[in-house]
């Protein structure tokens, strides 16, 4: 039998599990300032998550999906975005969204149950899509945005979208990969492989040895990165985005990490996970990894990192306060239910709008 095609999946890691450089670091990572910024961005999300979960426990937040353990995936990819790029996030995209410029309090408003959280105010985020809850639908939106960019021959723009490894079982995921391939779209797909889809482990999700190889089905470049190594994630994403911006087409990046939190605040992971595995995963987590490297390499002093953490806490607190004030003081009027359905209010909805206002003002 002759061979008609052959493929390889590469795995990219810069800092190994002991935070030792496993490869020559990419240029950006030789600049401690950049690494410290990445460290801060990760800390910020971790602290924000912790605060938000606490808010949920006291009834000031609804169901919320934390990113604990997955900060490098979001920060590494999101920080690679440039002006003009478009982000099509998924529900666990907090870190990526913040890196893009979406305000943390907007994300909180969304999870707090207010539509206005998706009306992103940052001028850089006007074209970003709101969080996609129906899994994998966002993949196709990303392909559509990338199609518009390609059809309009806009140079230097790319699209980034994310999905969980469980989401790769949905048909729409593959449909998006396929069209991105055949139309050579300026698009980067990040698969956040945090090992779990709620309670379902990867072994029950697919027989594929890697999630990256799903890209082979579409004939597009695909690779794995260590998702606990923010340098690897940022390097791979930066290169993929550059490729996309310069007409080189799409890339699939599987970032391997571990979900250290419950799936959401509505979940109890102790029902299904193995505490031993969980404990092991803590040893590989991304913030400690970068911290160890920064300290060992002399890129930062312990005090610097501590004060960076304090700084993050203060910043988080500011966002939390904006959110809490908003929730307390700023309510949508009843007519908000109707006023964004269509550009022009249809007659039948006008009547209902009047009723809602009447009832609301009672």
């Amino acid at each position: 039998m002759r061979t008609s095609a052959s493929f390889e999946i590469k795995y990219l890691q810069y800092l190994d599990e002991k935070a030792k450089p496993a490869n020559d670091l990419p240029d950006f990572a030789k600049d401690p300032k950049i690494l410290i910024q990445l460290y801060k961005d990760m800390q910020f999300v971790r602290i924000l998550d912790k605060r938000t979960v606490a808010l949920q426990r006291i009834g000031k937040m609804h169901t919320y999906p934390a990113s604990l353990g997955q900060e490098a995936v979001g920060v590494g990819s999101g920080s690679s975005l440039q002006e003009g790029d478009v982000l099509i996030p998924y529900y666990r995209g907090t870190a990526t969204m913040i890196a893009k410029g979406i305000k943390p309090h907007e994300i909180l408003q969304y999870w707090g149950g207010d539509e206005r959280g998706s009306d992103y105010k940052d001028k850089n985020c006007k074209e970003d899509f709101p969080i996609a809850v129906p899994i994998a639908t966002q993949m196709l939106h990303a392909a559509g945005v990338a199609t518009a960019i390609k059809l309009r021959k806009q140079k230097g723009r790319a699209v980034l979208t994310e999905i969980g490894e469980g989401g790769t079982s949905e048909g729409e995921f593959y449909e998006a990969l396929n069209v991105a391939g055949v139309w050579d779209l300026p698009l980067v797909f990040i698969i956040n492989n945090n090992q779990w889809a709620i309670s379902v482990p990867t072994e029950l999700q697919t027989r594929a040895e890697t999630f990256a190889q799903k890209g082979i089905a579409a004939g597009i470049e695909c690779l794995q990165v260590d998702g606990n190594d923010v340098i690897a994630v940022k390097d791979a994403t930066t290169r993929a985005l550059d490729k996309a911006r310069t007409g080189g087409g799409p890339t699939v990046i599987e970032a391997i990490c571990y979900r250290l939190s419950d799936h959401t605040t509505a979940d109890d992971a102790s029902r299904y996970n193995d505490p031993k595995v969980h404990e092991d995963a803590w040893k590989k987590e991304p913030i400690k990894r970068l911290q160890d490297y920064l300290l060992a390499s002399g890129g930062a002093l312990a005090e610097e990192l501590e004060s960076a953490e304090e700084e993050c806490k203060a910043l988080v607190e500011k966002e939390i306060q904006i959110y809490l004030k908003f929730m307390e003081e700023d309510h949508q009027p009843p007519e908000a239910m109707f006023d964004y359905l269509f550009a022009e209010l249809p007659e039948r909805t006008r009547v209902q709008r009047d009723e809602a206002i009447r009832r609301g003002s009672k």
Partner: protein
Amino acid sequence: MATLTLIEAVTLAMEHELARDKDVVLLGEDVGLNGGVFRATDGLQEKFGVDRVIDTPLAEAMIAGLSVGMAGQGMKPVAEMQFMGFVFPAFNQIATAAARMRNRTRGRLSMPLVFRMPYGGGIHAPEHHSESTEALFAHLPGLRVVIPSNPSRAYGLLLAAIRDPDPVIFLEPKRIYRIEKHEIEDDGEAYPLDTCFIDREGDDITLVSWGAMMHETLKAADKLSEDGISAEVIDVATISPLDSATILDSVEKTGRCVVIQEAPRAGGIASEIAAEIAEKGLLSLLAPVCRVAGYDTIMPYARMEGQYMPSVERITDEVQKVMQFK
């Protein structure tokens, strides 16, 4: 005899059928070890094994399509869609395959399957987790669409759904999963899938509803009786095929009818019921048939959902209007 919530009754019915009939299997996302995100399948994998209670990959079209294939082999899959808002990827399989196989093969292959899914608002769930789109299924010939409104009915109707030789969409009003308990004997007695339940007899007006809204409707009936209005209350339960006869009989008696639904008003089941009355019960009518329904807009997120959903007050206001109609 156990005292059970609606969701516990759902679990009990599945357990009963798993034990009784080896062709019954449960499948869905997180239904195994985790017992489902609402715990409907809690403990069942442990009891019946991974071949009877199956965690699937994350893909609803796949869950539905697999169920069709399994049913084609005479198995009786009871598949969970995690939330009704996520059933849309499976719509193709439900509409073009499950609902049609018996008819397409002139009875050679049948589809004894059930798609269970929690639905409806009121629990401050995230976006897409609170909709009521039962009318979409009810318009597809070949499906039964069943909605329990309390624990006993959940048990009896789910048994019936699993035993039914045809596809059943079984919608679970999640807001009332744990709102009340019933004494339920696990006697395997199924309820009929072709008759409405008359929950309260009355003379002045017929109130028709189903699912979680039955609770608002019954509360409204209480309030109305304080004002001397005697409401007959009907729980439709099986919204498709609809048992119009029971509703028409009641309206013949009362002469007035208000239909209450959580779903958006336009094109909902309430419209179908009103249309049946307008066609077959016109002469009994002393007043317009009115609908109290969700608004024709997107279900708001948690903060505003309370303003969207029909309230007891909206029902009683409407009834008062109907009663005063001349």
